[in-house]
Structures are given as C-alpha cells and as structure tokens.
C-alpha cells in the first residue's frame, strides 16, 4: 500500500520530466534553426572561453609596459598595435573579456535574485505590500539608470565589484515588473486555483506553477539584460568608475584611447569592437530565445 502510494507520484514526475525534456529539445531545435541566434550563441561561447582562458590565450602580459613600443600600429608582434604605455592591445582586449563577463553575468544574477522574489510577492499577495513595492519600483525606474549607477559607484568608491552591484540594483525594477506581470496573469488560472483548493502551500504554488510559467520571459529578459549590463560596465569604466588601472577592461581602454585619437586610433577601434560584437551576440541570442520560447508559435 505504502509502496504504491510512493511510486505513483514518482511515475508522474518521470513522465513530466520527460515531457519537459521534449519541450526543451523542441525549443533548442527552434532556436538552432535561426541562423543569427546560432551565430550569436557561438560568439558567446567564444567570448566566455576567451575570458576563462585569457592567461593562456593572450600573447603577452596585458600589464607589461614597453617604452620602446609606445603607440605602435599593428605589426607581426602586436597584431592590434600597442597603447600609450607600449602594452599589447590584443592581450588587453582578451583580458578585458573577463571583466565584461563578470560584470554582465553577476549583475544580472543579482537583479534576478532580488527582483524575482519581490515581483512574486507583489503580484501574488497584492494589497498594500504590492502598492509599496510598485511605488518603489516606479521611483527607481524614474532614475536614469546611469545616474543611479554613477552615484553608487562614486559613493562606494570605484571598483569592479561596486560597479557590478550598482548595475545589478539598477536592473532590479525591470525584473520586479516582469515577474509581477507574469504572476498576475497566472494566478487566476484554473490550475493554480485548483492547486490552492487542494491545499498546496504558497511556496509550492510559486515553485511548481508560477515560476515555470514565468521562466521563458525571465530568461529572455536576463539575456538581453546581460547585454545592457556589459554596456553599462564599459560606460562606468569609461568614466573611470569601474575597473581601475592597470587592470584591462574595454571601457577603461577606451577612456585612455580618447586622448590619442589622432595619434593612435587603433587604441579606440578594438575594445569598442569587442563590446559591440559581444553585446550584439547577447541581443541576437535574446531575440532567438524570445522567438523559440514564444508559446504562440507552438
């Protein structure tokens, strides 16, 4: 008796996980059929690999100065030229990928961890708490994102960690809004009402019904937000509020390059191009995920 009762839910779980697996494969197939999205995904993989293996990939030490090679254009030794201190631009661009991916992924992670629970609570319980959270969200959204991030960075002192926090916090309201909207749409559905009638706890309803149904838009938003976060980090570093020298980052490289536009334009080309390509890749993948996960197209 006991064993059948125990095995019944297990069976249902396994068929469910099977169908989820099938659905996952279908989404993957729809995603890979889109060529731009696929190319974007490949670029992201290359970018992450570059960041991870920077110590081995970079031809030279990104911080090693060389006074005999100041602002030299590209040659056989320095493929992308050298900067104002004679450092290898290619090596610095490769190392800069680390900063960008750290800031991009961690800040969005922070935004998800803070924003999604707030949105869940706000949309599910409604009432006064919802009012408070939504007004705060409105207030935060009225700040220009950059002013907020800059103010944080100035107050906390410029560093990569602080810039990441500032960017993450600035992205929180977006996730609160999105999650709340999803919850509002799902909470009145019959299956949620049914689960509640059967005595499911709120936590279970969140975990089993509301989160899975909100997963697709959240994933899309997160992907696109990583793109935005990478731009934000480079902007902060460009203003001197992110990564501090001599650690290479794309934004701070551009900050320096601005002073040598007529003498050494290549100093400005490559870090900027790296930002554009990376951000473009995340945006394209976000678009691809959006289309592939769109239930209207099933």
């Amino acid at each position, binding site marked *: 008796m006991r064993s059948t009762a125990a095995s019944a839910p297990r069976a249902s779980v396994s068929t469910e996980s099977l169908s989820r697996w099938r659905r996952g494969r279908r989404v993957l197939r729809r995603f890979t059929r889109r060529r731009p999205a696929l190319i974007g995904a490949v670029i992201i993989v290359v970018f992450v690999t570059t960041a991870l293996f920077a110590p081995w990939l970079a031809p030279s030490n990104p911080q090693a100065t060389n006074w005999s090679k100041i602002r030299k254009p590209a040659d056989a030794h320095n493929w992308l030229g050298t900067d104002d201190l004679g450092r290898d631009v290619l090596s610095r661009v490769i190392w800069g990928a680390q900063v960008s991916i750290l800031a991009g992924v961690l800040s969005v992670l922070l935004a998800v961890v803070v924003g999604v629970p707030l949105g869940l609570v706000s949309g599910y319980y409604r009432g006064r708490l919802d009012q408070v959270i939504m007004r705060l969200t409105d207030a935060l959204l009225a700040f220009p994102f*950059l002013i907020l991030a800059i103010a944080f960075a100035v107050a906390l002192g410029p560093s990569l960690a602080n810039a990441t926090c500032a960017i993450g916090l600035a992205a929180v309201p977006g996730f609160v809004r999105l999650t709340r909207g999803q919850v509002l749409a799902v909470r009145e559905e019959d299956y949620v009402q049914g689960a509640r009638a059967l005595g499911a706890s709120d936590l279970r309803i969140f975990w089993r019904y509301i989160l899975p149904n909100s997963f697709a838009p959240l994933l899309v938003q997160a992907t696109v937000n990583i793109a935005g976060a990478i731009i934000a980090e480079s902007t902060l570093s460009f203003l001197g509020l992110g990564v501090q020298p001599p650690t290479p980052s794309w934004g701070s490289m551009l900050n320096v390059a601005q002073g040598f536009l007529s003498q050494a334009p290549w100093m400005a080309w490559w870090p900027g191009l790296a930002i554009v390509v990376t951000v473009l890749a995340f945006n394209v993948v976000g678009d691809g995920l959006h289309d592939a996960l769109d239930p209207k197209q099933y």
Partner: protein
Amino acid sequence: MVQFIVRRLLISLIVLVLITLMVFASQRLLPGDPVRVWAGEEQDPESLAFFRHKYGLDQPIPVQYLTWLGLAVQGDLGRSIRTGIEVRDEIVRRLPITLELAFLALLVAIGLALPAGVLSAVRQNTVWDYVGNALALFGLSVPHFWLGIMLILGFSVHWHWLPASGYVSPFENLAENLRRMIMPAFVLGTGLTAVLMRQLRSSLLGVLQSDYVRTARAKGLSERPVVSKHALRNALIPVVTVLGLQAGALFGGAIITEQVFVIPGFGKYSLDGVFSRDYAQVQAVVLITAVGYLLVNLLVDIAYSLINPRIRLEGAETE
C-alpha cells in the same frame, strides 16, 4: 478623463516624494564626508564645523530634508557648495542645451525609425527587412560613447568636416550650432531609433494581419492607403508608450554624449555634481529629472488614452 489625470498626478506626486527621499537618504547615509572633500586644504575642525553649519549639514537629516523640500517647492534649489553659484541659475542655463540635444535626437530617431519600421514590416523577409533589423540590432548594441568616439575619429580627426566638441547657442549662430549638434544628436538618437523601429515593425506586422486591414484590402484599397491610413495609426499606439519609457534612457544617454562631445549641458552638470558630491547640485538634478520623466509619462498616458479610448474605459471599470 479629468479624474484619470488627477489620479495619475497624485500617484506621480507620491513617487516624486519617494524619489527625493531616497536621494536625500542615500546621499547622507553613504560613506564619505563631502565637507572634507569641499574644504580642500583647510581641514581644521573649526572651518569644517563652519562649513557644516553654513550649509545646514549639522542639522538632523529629517530637518535637512524638510528644509530642502520647503525651499525647493518655492523654486529655491540652493547653492552649489563648490562654486557658490545658485543651482537654479545654472540649471536654467544648461537645461535648454540638453533639451535641444534630446529634441534633435528624437527627430533623428523618428526620422529614421518611421520609414525603416514601415519598410521592414511591409516588406517582411526581404533584404530591406534584414538590413533594417541588422541595423536596429547594431544600434541597440553599440555603446554611445564608442559611437561618439568613432564619429569624432572619422568626421573630425580624419576628414575635418565637423568640430569634435564644444557648444554654440542657436541664437548666436544657428548653422554653427547645428554643425556641432549633428554628431551628438545622431549618437544619442541611435539607441532610440533601434527601439522605435523594432517596436513599430512588430506592431505593424500584428496590425497588418488583423481583420479590418483585410477588409480594407478586400474592398479594393491599394496597399499604400491601407498601411498609411488604416494600419499605421493603430500600430503607433505601442510606439508612443515605448517613446515615454525611453525618456529616461534618453537622458542617461545625454549624460554620456555630453561627456564625449564636451557639451556644457544638464547631463554634464549632473555628472560633475555626482563626481564632486555636491549635495545641492545632485538633489536638484535628480528632482528635475524625475519631474521631467514623470511628466513625460503622464503625457504619454494621456496621449495613449486619447488615441485608444478602450484603455480609458477599461481603467475606469477596474477602479
């Protein structure tokens, strides 16, 4: 309608108070003593205390806040502690510069996004559509400051066509003003162009499949009036909303754009204020920005309910 606007105004007011409170609290509670920064060399306790007293910083924070709010309501935004100049005067001088920049950027964005969005929707899955989409994605992905640097590199450093930086008032010399504003306006407008174009494309694609468009086609209308008279009007509704949401982004972009092109506008003033922790300056800047943002959104809501009466009715029913 009046009730709708009053309600929105009240909510905006609450949000505004919240914003000023948050800014005030965050400025006062964050680590670092700005008085020491301003005082510079004179670090003896007496002059520090004098500074604190002069600017009311020795009062409890709630008192400071209420004092500031009371004065701000009367239009007195205080003096910059660094320069001693009235913040209001400085803002009155600089805000028009940024508004001009934003206005030109808006023109650029609408001028590019409208034809591009319509073209790529009407010619879906053709070369036009692909090129339009690719350009829009590029516009979303390129950081303002890098695009600015690249334009300066091309048009100023290499070809010597346009000045790389500086500002001339349009009342002094309109041609010179536009010559200096064209690159910044384009840079600031790129992101907005991309967002508007994508929004217009997708909403127009949706509308073009609706029944009334099919009816219009079925009764023999040629494609041009179907798009321009019937479809576009409805497709623009979500575009207007997006425009309002982008107002904040436009200002954030203006900060960077003004920094890159050395334009002495409101954005640069904000940045300078934050960098030097000038309380009065930052508070005023945030207040003005927030008021502007909320006003724009209020206008968008009103415009929205005017274009689309359904919204207003639905809102009235639930409230």
